[in-house]
Every structure is written in C-alpha cells, then in structure tokens.
C-alpha cells in the first residue's frame, strides 16, 4: 500500500468510533471516523470528518491540511481493524458531495491492488433505467457510493480480479 498512515489511533470501547490527529501546514486537526448502523440490515455507514471538539460535529469541510493520502490511508487501515471485529458487516462509503466521492474513487484506484486483496469493493450506481444497483467495482465508472466488505480469509491470497 503506497499510502503513509497515522499510527496513533484512539478508539471507543465498541470500536464504532475512531479518532486520530492530522498534522500538516494548517496545524493539528482531529479526524473522526464513525461507523453507524443503517436501517438496512447488515449495512453500516462510514463517516470521516473533522472534529473540533465542540458541539457542531457534522463537518462537511475539506481541510486541505496537506495530508489527504495519509488521512485516507489511515481510514483504510481503520476499516481493516473494524472488519477484524465485524467481518460480516457491509460498509457504505459515500462522499459528502460528488467531488468527495470522486476523491474516494481515485484513492481506491491508487491502492486497488492492496485493497482488493482484503476487501470486496463494489459500487452503488444507476443503471440505464436510472435504478440504483450494486455492481462490480469499475475504476472508470462514477458511482454514488461504495460498498466494502471484508473478504473471507481463504480469498486473501488470490482475490478475483
């Protein structure tokens, strides 16, 4: 995996919330990753954002702290940690806007070889009838969100292409 990572991570007792410190030109910024159970059975949303420690926790900001790859790399490894504990759960990853979702696509593409070994990644997008469907990940296709699952251990060594 080409991404550097932040190695010090705080976690909640139930491993649903993680926190780590982004360190860059704009200073130190706390990043929070939270997994939230969805009404659709087996699905959990992954949210990544800034946390200033105040009451307004719903950040949609892009910090530009010069460490985007490091933050996303840390998030990817945090997903691995989470799926160590909850291997059957499906994770929905959706950017806060189209630009963010495209950013995630670029990050997935860049680390595809490594990610594909341990995660089954699929896309959530529209078909010709404008119906929302789950399909195999296509690095060139624009999806509205991604669904990530941990691969069974016996698939680790030889993931399908």
């Amino acid at each position, binding site marked *: 995996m080409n991404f550097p990572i932040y190695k010090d991570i705080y*976690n909640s007792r139930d491993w649903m919330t993680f926190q780590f410190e982004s360190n860059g030109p704009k200073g130190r910024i706390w990043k929070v990753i939270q997994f939230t159970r969805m009404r*659709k059975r087996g699905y959990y949303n992954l949210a990544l954002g800034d946390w200033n420690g105040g009451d307004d926790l719903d950040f949609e900001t892009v910090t530009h702290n010069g460490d985007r790859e490091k933050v996303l790399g840390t998030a990817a490894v945090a997903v691995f940690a989470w799926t160590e504990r909850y291997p059957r759960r499906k994770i929905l990853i959706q950017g806060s806007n189209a630009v963010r979702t495209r950013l995630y696509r670029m990050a997935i593409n860049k680390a595809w070889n490594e990610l594909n070994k341990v995660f089954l990644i699929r896309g959530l997008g529209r078909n010709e009838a404008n119906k929302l469907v789950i399909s195999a990940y296509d690095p060139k296709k624009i999806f509205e969100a991604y669904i990530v699952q941990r691969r069974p251990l016996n698939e680790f060594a030889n993931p399908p292409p």
Partner: protein
Amino acid sequence: MNKDMKNQDIVELYSQLRFRRSPELDSLRNTVLFPRKVSRAQTLLEELA
C-alpha cells in the same frame, strides 16, 4: 517471499497501528456525529431496497 507474505500489506500496516481506548469517545456512544452523512446514506440504501 511467498504469495501469502506479499499479500500482507494492509495487515502489516494494521499491525503498526497503536490503538488507545478513549473515554471521550466512549461517552459519545449512541451519538451520531455526522447526521447529514448518515441521513444521506439511509436515503440511498432505502432506494436500493
């Protein structure tokens, strides 16, 4: 290096992480920190259903 070893990239990174329990994060249990994001996700998944 055998094939299994080459496939340890994320596993190796995972082993480098230093996790620490945070009472502050514990106190946020059942608190949705990103309600707008979660709301969008719920809407998307409901459409999928």
